[in-house]
Each structure stands twice: as C-alpha cells, then as structure tokens.
C-alpha cells in the first residue's frame, strides 16, 4: 500500500474517529506491568477474580391490601396476629418482616377485616438499602479490601435478593463476616463516671424503624426487651437510683466497646419503672434531619449487626486466585485462536490480504473500543466474555455482508454506485443489529439475571459496530480496492 492511499483512507472522518476511539480505549484499559505482573484497568467479575459471592434471599414479603378499617388499627391487628413487624411502605402496600405463604396471609388478612390484593416475596427498597448499609458496615469494620453489596430490585420496586461480592475472601470466611453480630450492651452510670452492666443485646427482642412519638417532633427508635431483660432494666434503675434521680444516671448503649448512645430516663419512664418492669422502650435522638439520621444510626446499632429481616443464602460461589488467573489466560487464548480461525476462513474465501487485514483490524478495534467502554460501566465475567464472542461473531458476519455487497464479481464499482451499495449493505446491517438489540434488551433490563453483563456487552458491541466501525470499514475497503 502506498503512502497516498494511506493518507486518503485517514481523511475519512469515520476512520479517524475509529482511530481516536481505539487510542482512547487503550488509555482507558491502560495495559501495564506492575510488580512483574501484567495488569489492566478492566474490572473482572468474580468468576475471573479471586473471591466469593453470596446471594441472599429476604424472608419477608411486600403485599398489597385493602381494608375499610383505619390503617393504624388494621396494621396493629396484623402485627399481633402474625407476631411480626408490619410496616406501611406506601398508600396500599405493607412490608411484613417474617416469612409467610400467600395462603397464610390471606386468612389472617380476612380475619383482621381486610383483603390481600398482591403478594411478592422481598422487602421495600428502603429496607433493602438499610440492609445494604448494615452489611457494608460489617464488612468495613473487618477491613476487607474490595466489597460490593447490591440489592437486586425488580421492576415492581420489591427487592427479593441481595448480593454480596467479596474479593480475596474464602467462602467460609465470607459467611462468617456476613453472619457475624456485634456485641451490644447497656450500662448505667452509678457514681463518679462509674458504670455498671445492665443487659446485653440478646435481651432485645425487636427494634422498630425511626419514628416520632404521636404529637412530637422528636425522632427516635422504639425497641422491646424480653421479660428477663425488662426485669434487669428495672432492677438496675432502682438499685442505682436512676428512678429517683434520672438526670444523674445516664444509660449508655455500647456496641463493640464504643458508646453509641447515651441519655437519661425520661421522668415519665422513671416513674413507671418504679411501679413495674417496662418492656417497650423508646430512645429519642432529636428533631429534624439530624434527629432522623441519628435515629437511623441508632437503629442499626441496636440491631448490633443483625439484619432487620431474616435472610437465607440462596446461592454462593468461590473462585480461588490460581483458578481465576488460569480462566483469564484460557479466555485470552480462546479469543486469540478464534481471531486466527476467522482470519484463515476469510482469507480462504477472498484470497486477498488487503481485504482480510482491514476486516480483522476493524473487528479488533471494535473489541478494543468495547473493552475500553466496559472499563467504566461493566465488569467482565464469563457471561460478558460470551458477549464479546457474540460481538466478534456478528461483527465479522456483517463485514462479510459489506464486502460482498460492494464488490460485484471481485470488481469495485464507480464511487456513486459504491455509495449506493454501501448504503444498501448498511441497511441490511442496521436491521440485523436492531433485532439483536431488541432480543437482548429484556436481559439487560432484568435486574436479577446473571446474564445482564452478557446482554449489555452484546448491545454495546452491536451499537459500536453499526454506528462507528462498520461504516469506517466501508470507506477503508473502497480506498484500498479502487485502483
């Protein structure tokens, strides 16, 4: 190829754009040697990286309901009948934080004077976020390097699963971390900054969500004690004089050795405690947004790392470091061999290096641009690699369509006819690209599916191909073949 030809190829803006994008992508991927190991900026999913994933299912449900009774009464009734936490999450849906089948709930709802209109296992988005926060806190305190916690929320806004990915952690370790609870204790001030033990976290039977007492602007969290805990609480309050002089005998809540909350008994509570043990307590945190935030934190602390909703492990997986490196090597090898195989097949048909080389080059630039974009938005797991292969396959298919369309019996037509034919080829490509994109769209939108990466990579690859690289190939091939 002579110099003039190269220059005239580069003059086409489509070609220039591809070159700029390839360079940009290489910068984004940033292949380099670090500590004697080849590394890039590409993020790998857990099947190509040492680590563990845990997918947990919420043992709770979000249900729609109808009732003629006042909501407060109805929900209170349900709470008693189900012996579970029940919360109103929007105008007509409840979150029930315990597992029941639809049939069980239907009978309880009708007993309470209402009807069940919908049923979906899972929790509200807000609860899922709270669980996420608790899990992240736990993981952070253990200093784990690289952790991701993703609630998987369906289109209805109900979160059925939550997925935890921990890089560099074994399966047994990961389960320990997620299941581990902190040590929670309540202590009471005696004299001269001395404190005495009152009760441990195992005496707390349930913790409410941040709320305001009726007619008050003050936020807080309610929690209840078991009978034994309530007795201990009363005993300590009387023994150390908090009942008579609350202000001088603050109660401290301590999680893993840190004081997370400290306040005095209210006068009302002090008076009640003098008479009998109280199981239902309320810790206030202040007014406004600040009070709400403090209440949210206190709720997490009161749970001491326990989740507000029971979860069961739905699925887990662990890939050791050596195996993940091996997988990466093999994927790369498969990719290189596939490219060579494509090269040989295309060469066998056209017998013309000046067609085959731009074809393979276009295909590779497509993959590089795709990887470059993927470094920002999508981690590569085995499913996403399958997507890369799909892109490689359809990519070469469509380059063949362009080549055969514009070359009639091996000859290159005049520029005007060429343009017409290229447009026709591109219209064939656009239709098949549109079918692939629409075929993959449901997978990309379905949040729960592990195949999401596959769909995103495929769609992205097809888009890049149709809008950027394949038109450029059309220009290159014309310049090369025109005599």
């Amino acid at each position, binding site marked *: 190829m002579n110099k003039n030809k190269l220059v005239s190829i580069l003059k086409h803006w489509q070609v220039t754009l591809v070159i700029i994008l390839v360079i940009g992508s290489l910068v984004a991927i940033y292949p380099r040697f670090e500590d004697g190991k080849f590394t890039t900026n590409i993020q790998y999913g857990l099947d190509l990286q040492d680590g563990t994933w845990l997918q947990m299912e919420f043992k709770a449900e979000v249900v729609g309901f109808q009732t003629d009774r006042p909501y407060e009464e109805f929900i209170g009734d349900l709470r008693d009948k189900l012996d579970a936490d029940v919360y109103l999450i929007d105008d007509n849906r409840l979150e029930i934080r315990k597992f029941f089948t639809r049939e069980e709930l239907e009978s309880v709802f009708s007993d309470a004077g209402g009807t069940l209109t919908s049923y979906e296992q899972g929790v509200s988005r807000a609860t899922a976020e709270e669980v996420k926060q608790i899990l992240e806190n736990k993981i952070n305190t253990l200093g784990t390097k690289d952790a991701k916690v993703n609630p998987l929320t369906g289109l209805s806004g109900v979160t059925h699963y939550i997925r935890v990915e921990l890089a560099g952690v074994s399966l047994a370790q990961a389960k320990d971390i997620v299941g581990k609870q902190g040590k929670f204790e309540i202590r009471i001030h005696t004299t001269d900054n001395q404190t005495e033990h009152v009760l441990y976290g195992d005496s707390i039977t349930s913790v409410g969500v941040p709320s305001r007492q009726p007619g008050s602007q003050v936020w807080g969290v309610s929690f209840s004690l078991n009978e034994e805990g309530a007795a201990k609480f009363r005993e300590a309050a009387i023994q150390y004089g908090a009942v008579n002089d609350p202000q001088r005998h603050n109660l401290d809540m301590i999680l893993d050795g840190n004081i997370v909350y400290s306040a005095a008994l209210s006068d009302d509570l002090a008076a009640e405690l003098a008479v009998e043990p109280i199981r239902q307590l309320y810790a206030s945190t202040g007014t406004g947004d600040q009070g709400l935030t403090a209440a949210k934190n206190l709720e997490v602390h009161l749970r001491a790392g326990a989740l507000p909703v029971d979860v069961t492990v739905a699925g887990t997986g*662990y890939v050791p470091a050596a195996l993940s490196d091996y997988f990466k090597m093999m994927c790369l090898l498969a990719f290189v061999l596939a490219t060579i195989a494509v090269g040989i097949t295309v060469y066998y048909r056209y017998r013309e290096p000046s067609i085959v080389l731009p074809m393979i080059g276009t295909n590779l630039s497509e993959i590089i641009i795709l990887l470059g974009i993927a470094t920002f938005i999508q981690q590569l797991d085995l*499913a996403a690699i399958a997507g890369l292969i799909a892109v490689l396959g359809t990519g070469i298919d469509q380059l*063949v369509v362009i080549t055969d369309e514009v070359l009639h019996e091996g000859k290159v037509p005049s520029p005007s006819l060429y343009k017409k034919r290229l447009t026709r080829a591109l219209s064939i490509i656009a239709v098949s690209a549109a079918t692939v994109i629409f075929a993959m769209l449901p997978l990309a939108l379905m949040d729960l599916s592990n195949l999401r990466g596959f769909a995103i990579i495929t769609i992205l690859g097809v888009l890049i191909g149709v809008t950027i690289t394949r038109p450029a190939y059309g220009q290159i091939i014309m310049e090369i073949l025109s005599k």
Partner: protein
Amino acid sequence: MGLIGYDVNKYSPRQMVTIPMIILLLALVSMGYSMATTGMPVNPGMDFSGGTAVTLFTTDSAQEIRDVFSGYPLLNIGEGVNNGKYLRFGPMDDAALQSLATYVGEKYPEAKIDQIGATFGQTLQQQAFIALLFSFIGMTIVVFLAFRTLIPAGAVVLSAFADIAMTAAVMNLIGMDLSLPTTAALLMLIGYSVDSDILLTMRVLKRQGKLDEKLAGAFRTGIIMTTTTLAAVVAMWVVAFAGQITVIWEIATVLIIGLLIDMMNTWLTNAGIIKWYVLNRGGK
C-alpha cells in the same frame, strides 16, 4: 467454497421446506415428550434446579475423592483432561454447606465452589424463560417492522424459532443441561440466526435481478458468514475443552449445534419460503 454440491436453486420450494419441517416436528415432539415426563422441555442443570458443585484440579482418583467427601452427599464426579474434576453434591443445609466450604478450603485450596439454592434456581429458571420469550418477541417485532410483509417476515421468524427448538432438542438428545451459559448461547443464536436470514430476505426482495442469481449470491455470502462464525466458535470449543472452562465449552457446544442447524433452516426453510413467495407473487 461452501457446502459442496448444494445448489440453492436446484430444488422446488416444497422439496426444500419438507425436510426441516419434519425435523422441527420431531424436535417439538421430543420436547413435548420430555415436558410430559419431566415437566420441563429441556433438562434443567444445576443453575436452575439447585445444588452444589466443586471444580478442582487434582491427581487423586475418583475413589480417593469419594473417600475424602464421604461425610457429604456427593452425587457424582465428572472427569476432564488436565486432571480436572467436577463434583456435584445433593441438597445440604446452610451449616453443612459451611462445613463443606471450610473442608474443601483445607483439602483443595485451589477449588472453585458454586452453590445455588433450589428456590433461587427456580427464580433463575423463570427469568431465563421470560428472557427467551421476550427476546423472541422483540426479534419478531423488529423483523415485521423491517419487512412489513407477512410471509417474508414470518419466514425469518419461523427459521429462528426452528433454530432454537431444534438446538434445544439436540441438547436433550446428547444430555446437555439448560444452564445460564446455555441459555445465553440460545439467545446468541437468535442474533446469529437472523443475520443470514435478513441478508437473504433483503437480497431477494430489495435487489433487482433474476431470482436464481440473487439466491445464489445470497447463499455465497451467507455461507461465508456462518462458516467464519463457526470457525471462531470451534476454536473456542477446542480451547475450552482442553482447558476445562465449562462455561465457555457449554456455550461453544450449543453454538456449533445451532449454527449447523441454522444453515439448514436458512437455506432450506427460509430460502424455500421466500422462493415460493417470489414465484407466486411474481415478486419484483
């Protein structure tokens, strides 16, 4: 180049369509049979039915491994080249799984562990089904919008459907399970399948010239498209087989089967129908 000896213009539309339609019927019957006996048209693999799998590389014999895991519900051991072993376990509770994970970590620190709960598997299965269904509907809508005529668009959709149904039937026949990777492969097949079908339909309907020439030209291009894809997939298959990358191997196997079936469906089913359509409508 191409399938030596096949001339796309030699046979009448009826002759072309008969063979694939008989095969499609057999495929549907076989899936119907397995639906009636097992409740699923295709065998669900571990991803969908739940279970625990351990992949490891060891020179220990199968018997030795059985002894090592005697305390756990080991179902079977698959062996590959390179001393790769694939162990499948029956259902276990959380505690047993935790102890298995610890145990595997001690005995074979290089082992990969996967576990899918039965209900989670069911959710995944439903999703895979919905994904396949919606993909197919999406594809159908685009094809109908692009061609706007019933028969040519129907032919493309029919041959894509036949590709997936026949491939699924062959998977049943050779004992391949439906897993997340094979679902992905079936979806990829939708894409590959319509590629050559659309080329054929566009060439025949939107180009001027004799029908015979257009068919022959489309056939030449279409066969290179499929053979290049096939070449890439076979290369992957070889690497994945030798290297025991189950996921890629499964995808490659399904794609090889599917691409071969697609050649038949494109150049017999679709070409037959479009030829009949043009001849009977005196198409332009």
